[in-house]
């Protein structure tokens, strides 16, 4: 990899639609700046990486409860404010379409196409009972040391 390339990292801790959209817009912008971009997904942020269809994996009772209660994938995320039991996200998606903005699933696809590294935190995956089969293809799995390795070289490090 080009050592002279600027780097940017984002930690996506939140699992809400608005915050995930912001993270992916910044990530795609940074990739257009030719930065090496990494997004680390931890805790609720991992939900943005879930596939919309269910994967058949063995889970304990608590993990099954988590899986049921957490949004399954980018299209199912709620809003941090004005969620109104799911009406808010519908309104936002409608308005975004009207303004020709990309949807979150499209932003994720674009990020992958632009070479943005999507990294799932394996420790919090264990806590929430998420397994690799349930998450999008083409992502990486790592922990805090990998994050710090990337973040130490980056001028832009965001926690969302």
């Amino acid at each position, binding site marked *: 990899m080009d050592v002279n390339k*600027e780097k940017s990292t984002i930690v996506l801790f939140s699992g809400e639609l608005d915050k995930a959209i912001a993270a992916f*817009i910044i990530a*795609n*912008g940074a*990739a*257009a*700046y*030719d930065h090496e971009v990494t997004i680390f997904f931890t805790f609720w942020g991992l939900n943005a990486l879930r596939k919309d269809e269910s994967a058949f994996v063995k889970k304990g009772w608590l993990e099954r409860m988590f899986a049921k209660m957490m949004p399954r994938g980018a299209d199912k995320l709620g809003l941090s404010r004005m969620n109104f039991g799911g009406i808010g996200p519908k309104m936002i998606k409608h308005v*975004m379409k009207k*303004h*020709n*903005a*990309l949807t979150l699933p499209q932003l994720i696809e*674009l990020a992958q196409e*632009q070479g943005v590294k999507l990294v799932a935190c394996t420790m919090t995956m264990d806590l929430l009972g998420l397994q690799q089969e349930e998450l999008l293809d083409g992502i990486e799995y790592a922990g805090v040391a990998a994050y710090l390795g990337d973040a130490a070289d980056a001028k832009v490090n965001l926690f969302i």
Partner: protein
Amino acid sequence: MANLVVDAKGLACPMPIVKAKKGIDTLEPGQTMELQTTDKGSMKDFQAWVNQTNHELVEAREDSGVFTFVVKKGS
């Protein structure tokens, strides 16, 4: 005449900058790209982008809501 014309009119952030990057990647150093956008943040966006990359902003103008930028690819 620019070597490449990229039409990003009607597209919202971050598409204009992403299309600009994809466009300029296809050019050789010294060649130019003309980019058209309608996003109101474009002027600041492209000034910043050109400042942070090696490219040169040859021309930037607005005409009734359409922004046109001519960018020369750096080495």
